[in-house]
């Protein structure tokens, strides 16, 4: 640091004395101890169990990747996460677009609905979908009434149910950041583009979408990561045929008491999450603070 920089710094930013550093560290110490004891230690201990139980070695990983059972769960997890991400993107983009430019009162109302749905208790929302999607539920009755189908569709305990229920939950995480990103774009950029002779389609694909590629990709990645680790909604709306990793982990621990394999699945989930998350931080900078 040069003397000039020092001078420009506000008072509190002046290089600290040792006592001040210690005091600062002392302030974070209680929380640090708490997080170390209740987070770092138990998570590391869990990860360790994947190579120590029942015997030392990589046996659990071999078992996980050997048969089709667990690989299918892993594949399912990716499938559901991808479907949810795709659906959120396709629905979320026009919604955010509308929110960003709609008249204030209309946009405010819709934004209020988005936030309300996001804040409503997760179980309550999932329960509502269970009711809506059941054989005698509103959706089936509506479709029957319209004559579109002749017999009730099975909408729960399968891929449709999980994807629908999870998209409902993840949608706000695409809509809200994308809306604020769109609001920061100066409309005159597009006016300039069309004065340059760009058609409407070119404006969309050459100007608007590239400008939003960062927020879109960042939102999609965030939803994908969150979907990988989701437990409640898949457990209630999905069927046994579409089991995902989190539910597998829960079952291995609660029903089968197979801690070794559970820890293996947890490690795999954790590593996937951390890799994707570090990609997010690396390419899109800010930590997602949902």
């Amino acid at each position, binding site marked *: 640091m040069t003397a000039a920089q020092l001078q420009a710094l506000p008072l509190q930013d002046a290089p600290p004395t040792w006592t001040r*550093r210690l*005091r*600062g*560290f002392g302030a974070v110490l209680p*929380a640090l101890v708490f*997080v170390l004891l209740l987070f770092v230690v138990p*998570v590391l201990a869990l990860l360790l169990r994947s190579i120590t139980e029942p015997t030392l070695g990589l046996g659990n990983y071999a078992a996980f990747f050997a048969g089709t059972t667990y690989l299918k769960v892993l594949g399912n997890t990716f499938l559901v996460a991808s479907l949810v991400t795709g659906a959120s993107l396709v629905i979320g983009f026009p919604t955010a677009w509308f929110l960003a430019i709609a008249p204030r009162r209309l946009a405010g109302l819709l934004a209020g609905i988005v936030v309300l749905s996001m804040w409503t208790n997760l179980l309550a929302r999932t329960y509502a979908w269970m009711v*809506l999607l059941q054989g005698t539920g509103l959706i089936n009755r509506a479709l029957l009434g319209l004559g579109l189908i002749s017999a009730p569709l099975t909408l729960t305990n399968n891929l449709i149910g999980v994807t629908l229920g999870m998209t409902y939950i993840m949608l706000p995480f695409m809509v809200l950041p994308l809306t604020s990103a769109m609001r920061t774009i100066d409309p005159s950029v597009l006016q300039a583009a069309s004065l340059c002779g760009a058609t409407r389609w070119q404006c969309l694909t050459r100007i608007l979408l590239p400008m939003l590629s960062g927020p879109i990709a960042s939102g999609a990645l965030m939803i994908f990561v969150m979907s990988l680790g989701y*437990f409640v909604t898949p457990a209630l709306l999905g069927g046994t045929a579409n089991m995902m990793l989190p539910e597998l982990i829960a079952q291995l621990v609660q029903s089968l008491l197979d801690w070794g394999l559970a820890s293996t699945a947890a490690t795999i*989930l954790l590593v996937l999450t951390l890799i994707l998350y570090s990609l997010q931080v690396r390419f899109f900078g800010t930590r997602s603070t949902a």
Partner: protein
Amino acid sequence: MLLTYSRLGGLRFVLCGIGLTVGLFLLLPILVLVALSFGDSQWMQFPPPGWTLRWYADLFDDPDWIFAFLTSLRIAAWVTVLSVALGLVTSFGLVRSRFPGRETVRALFLMPMILPVVVLAVALYALFLRLQLNGTELGFVLAHLLLALPLSIISISGALERFDPSIEDAAVLCGASPMEAKIRVTLPAIMPGIATAALFSFLASWDEVVVAIFMASPDIQTLPVRIWGVLRQDLSPVVAAVSTLLVALTAVLMLLSAALKKKDVRA
């Protein structure tokens, strides 16, 4: 053009249609919940054939629901208090001082928020088995505190970062002791951030299911655990009544938070 609503032409109606459909899609489950809770169909017929308050009566007559509600409330209250207190001290440490490794420590504090909750739940379950904390209120409080703390730290350190420390220095030169300056000047100024932290901490505990499912025992259940248990068996309309109450609570907290945000921005 594309970002000017009045100049969109026909596309305007397409976008408007999509927006309203999505709004309906998001609102539908919530409306259904409310309607069902007042509907008199045991089998969740929709629209309900008639109206009743029976499910609410059932809810308030059932000591298990009341007990679960009170347990959740007690745990969430403890978590809120501890999370705000710990978050406040920690934020001062993170924002106001420069010790080596500060950024690493900050990242570590946010980690419990990023990790899949199920991994955390299993890890804590294993630890608490050893410490015999499963099925105790202390266990619930500790586990939920872990999930609430990052939210608290984010809100409070955000508010603290927006607060110019020179203002605190000015208070000291005015004759206030450093502690007095913090209490009388800095704390009131970052109060919206603290309130947001309290709100998020409360909700983090109040709505938490996954960790709770692992730690619950027949003796001690939080409200979400009880809902979960009922849902796994059948779709009782009593759950609709509970859910409606939860939606009402959410709406109230949401308005509160919007008010806080407004205040925080203004300050």
